């Protein structure tokens, strides 16, 4: 178990439910292991003078038909009840593991046979199987344990199969096979450790189920036989005298309830603790405040649209996105200021973690609930997007802003036809009727150059190729009359030839309808194809804002120059290594004082390490945040070789 796993178990124990459930399970287990000794004698002590007595100070739950103390008998029965439940679970888990892993070990043909058998077994209700096995193995504790265990095996086997199939498809398994590692070894080393957690959780919940099933079988007389007794058996005895002494039935019932509940709750809270992994690093105590809060200096509704020049589509000032974390908030976006004019194409480039995607999400108000978006100004077409979530704001975002994501495969609902998904936008935001909306969808598909749009609109997303899905996604954005398209790595998942088509399409839409474009990419080359202006981001800040045609010759920031030089081109010299950027990008949780790029920068001086350079207007016209930005482009060219460190 590595540290992360240990950490997750600890996290389970930190929740109130997890702690309670764990404590209860511990009590039950301790009772089962050490419990019986002191009570053994009293539980079996026959007292004929005191038969079928009600609860009293001496006998808390009364006595049975031989005058034996029921409370002690219930405690005494803990060992057998829990022991049998665990034994049944163990049988189920082992049988399930064998059946579940068999397809992997046996190869395709035999494996399919096993899978089929398991599926047939699953079709039978568990209790029916248990009753069947109980008859086969004979009435008694052993038979019941085998019955309940084997009845649980098919479900467990299927879980194992499903989880295995998921992990087995990963490349590291293929890599191990290519390295010549045998199937059994791969199973033990790679597959089982990666599915262990859900299996443990399931086995825990299964143990609770087995406990209940056992009580049921014993109660029906198919489980533990006298003179042995478990909780189910005691319940059976107690029901008979229910009108004489209700406590005789209630006491074992309570025991079953508590133990069963403890195991189930523990399983559930473990499952929850592990499932919460998506939110790693965000402690539950942090208050999830949605996008809100303006700078104190500028009340929200202060400035109407006419303050900005008429053709500004998006105006962002001092945008910050932060996420709560144990060691204080992490700020992946730290004060970003830019604006986009009507019909302008602006690219945002940077490495992973530079905050470029979060900037886009903040503009579209899609930062998830844990994140906090602050800005001095965040205006789309003159409307303040910072506060509130009014219908008007939603309509504005829905019709004036189009969003295109990286993965076209996951941005459509696979169960609905493309045309209907496009039409939904129009019906929702523009109140069009069903037929009119569909006609518009077909028209928009045509606009994004999808051939035979009438037929295509009636198809499902899986019938579209990746490039076509991405075009349909853009078409969806065009259902309204957007003033701004925000495209986050729209071509990263596509082939070069398809990438070219999508970029051409974006350019065409932009020029024909004067739609502004905010294109986010890690690839300077892609951005330079489409955009007029490029914002270079590093560690959550814009470090340079320059016209695209200055990228190769007039860039002033050493990072911009390094980023441009790192792209392999059709004319890069083949006899030299490609230029690379040394070091690693900054971790948003640990941003150094001074210029964030200083550690990787060949020009860095003491001032760079101490003082963060502001993004300032440069004599050449564009904005740059660097203490070493030279006024003359020629000068910049002179330092260029030094800024690009040759590969080791």
């Amino acid at each position, binding site marked *: 178990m590595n540290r992360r796993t240990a950490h997750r178990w600890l996290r389970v124990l930190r929740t109130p439910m997890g702690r309670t459930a764990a404590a209860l399970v511990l009590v039950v287990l301790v009772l089962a292991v050490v419990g019986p000794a002191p009570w053994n004698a009293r539980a079996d002590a026959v007292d004929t003078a005191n038969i079928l007595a009600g609860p009293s100070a001496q006998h808390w739950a009364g006595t049975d038909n031989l005058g034996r103390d029921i409370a002690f008998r219930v405690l005494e029965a803990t060992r057998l009840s829990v022991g049998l439940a665990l034994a049944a679970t163990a049988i189920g888990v082992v049988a399930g593991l064998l059946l579940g892993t068999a397809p992997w070990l046996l190869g395709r043909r035999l494996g399919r046979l096993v899978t089929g058998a398991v599926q047939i077994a699953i079709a039978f209700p568990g209790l029916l199987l248990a009753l069947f096995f109980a008859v086969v193995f004979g009435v008694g504790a052993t038979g019941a344990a085998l019955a309940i265990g084997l009845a649980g095996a098919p479900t467990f086997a299927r879980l194992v199969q499903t989880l295995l199939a998921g992990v087995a498809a990963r490349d590291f398994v293929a890599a191990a096979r290519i390295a010549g590692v045998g199937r059994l070894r791969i199973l033990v080393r790679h597959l089982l450790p990666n599915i262990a957690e859900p299996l443990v959780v399931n086995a825990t919940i299964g143990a609770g189920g087995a406990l209940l099933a056992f009580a049921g079988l014993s109660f029906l007389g198919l489980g533990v036989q006298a003179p042995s007794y478990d909780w189910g058996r005691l319940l059976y005895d107690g029901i008979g005298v229910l009108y004489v002494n209700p406590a005789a039935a209630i006491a074992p019932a309570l025991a079953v309830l508590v133990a069963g509940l403890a195991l189930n709750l523990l399983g559930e809270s473990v499952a929850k603790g592990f499932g919460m992994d998506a939110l790693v690093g965000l402690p539950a105590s942090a208050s999830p405040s949605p996008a809100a809060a303006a700078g104190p200096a500028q009340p929200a509704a202060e400035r109407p649209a006419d303050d900005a020049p008429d053709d500004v589509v998006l105006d962002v000032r001092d945008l910050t996105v932060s996420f709560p974390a144990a060691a204080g908030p992490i700020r992946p976006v730290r004060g970003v200021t830019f604006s986009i004019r009507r019909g302008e194409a602006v690219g945002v480039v940077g490495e992973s973690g530079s905050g470029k995607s979060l900037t886009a999400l903040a503009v579209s108000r899609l930062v998830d609930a844990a994140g906090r978006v602050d800005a001095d100004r965040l205006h789309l077409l003159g409307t303040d997007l910072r506060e509130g979530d009014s219908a008007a704001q939603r309509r504005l975002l829905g019709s004036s802003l189009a969003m295109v994501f990286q993965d076209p495969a996951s941005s459509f609902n696979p169960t609905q036809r493309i045309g209907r998904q496009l039409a939904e936008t129009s019906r929702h935001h523009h109140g069009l009727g069903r037929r009119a909306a569909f006609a518009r969808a077909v028209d928009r598909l045509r606009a994004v150059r999808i051939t035979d749009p009438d037929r295509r609109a009636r198809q499902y997303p899986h019938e579209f190729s990746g490039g076509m899905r991405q075009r349909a996604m853009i078409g969806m954005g065009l259902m309204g009359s957007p003033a701004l398209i925000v495209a986050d790595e729209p071509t990263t998942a596509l082939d070069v030839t398809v990438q070219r088509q999508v970029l051409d399409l974006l350019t065409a839409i932009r020029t024909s309808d004067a739609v502004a474009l905010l294109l986010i990419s890690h690839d*300077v080359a892609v951005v330079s*194809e489409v955009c007029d202006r490029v914002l270079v981001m590093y560690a959550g800040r814009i470090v340079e804002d320059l016209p695209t045609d200055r990228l190769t010759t007039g860039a002033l920031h050493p990072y911009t120059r390094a980023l441009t030089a790192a792209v392999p081109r059709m004319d890069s010299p083949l006899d030299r290594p490609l230029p690379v950027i040394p070091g690693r990008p900054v971790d948003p949780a640990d941003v150094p004082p001074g210029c964030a790029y200083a550690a990787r920068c060949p020009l860095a001086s003491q001032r760079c390490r101490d003082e963060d350079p502001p993004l300032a207007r440069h004599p050449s016209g564009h904005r740059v945040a660097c203490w070493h930005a030279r006024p003359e482009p020629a000068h910049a060219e002179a330092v260029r070789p030094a800024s690009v460190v040759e590969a080791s």
Partner: protein
Amino acid sequence: MSELLFEDVTVRYGRLTAVDGVTLRVPAGGVLGLVGESGSGKSTLARAAVGLVPPAGGRILLDGEPVRAHGRHRPLQMVFQDPYSSLDPRMTIGETITEAIPPGMSRAQRRTEVARLLELVHLDPGRASAYPGQLSGGQRQRVALARAIAGRPRVVIADEITSALDVSIQGAILNLVRELQRELGLSILFISHNLAVVRYVADHVAIMLRGRVVEQGPAARVLSEPGHEYTRALLDAVPGHRLTARSAT
């Protein structure tokens, strides 16, 4: 140094013919760049070579002998596209690399070997005990390269190894591939959809379209005088034309 030869190889998935009678040669000690769009069959061809999918027809020969796809020591190793999925998250990178080292070494020898391999890919040997989750994408891809070399392969297949990485890291991995190829005299089948990337590492190029090879030859010739229409389309699609055009003037 070994030569890998695909001779009229066909691979089918059910009714779909993914690779259709492909003949290709990875020259001994050379790099063959295989270019094509997704679905063109280039990755399937790679998987057939390492025995992950059985070919329906044709032969795959290593120095004239059929490739062994069973047993402990495999002469072909592969590096995958996604370094986040190709390393077992539960194993340290040292364990991952050790697993690929051919048997017959003592524990101490294996440890030295892991350190040597990590140094070869420019990672700190002290990080052998790190888990993949603690490494960046570029570092993981270096580990994947180290694992491939650990098996002492005669041919390495690199399947889109830089397309999941940031452009800023891509260059470093490409440099590393070139360096390893020269130092170890490896024969490499280098698969990519980006011609600018392939041009940088490969001396021969083959272009695949819908399961067939439509053009192949020396990289310099294919990229400067493309013979097939599709090759020209690929060349046109390389991003950065504006960058290139401007720096050329």
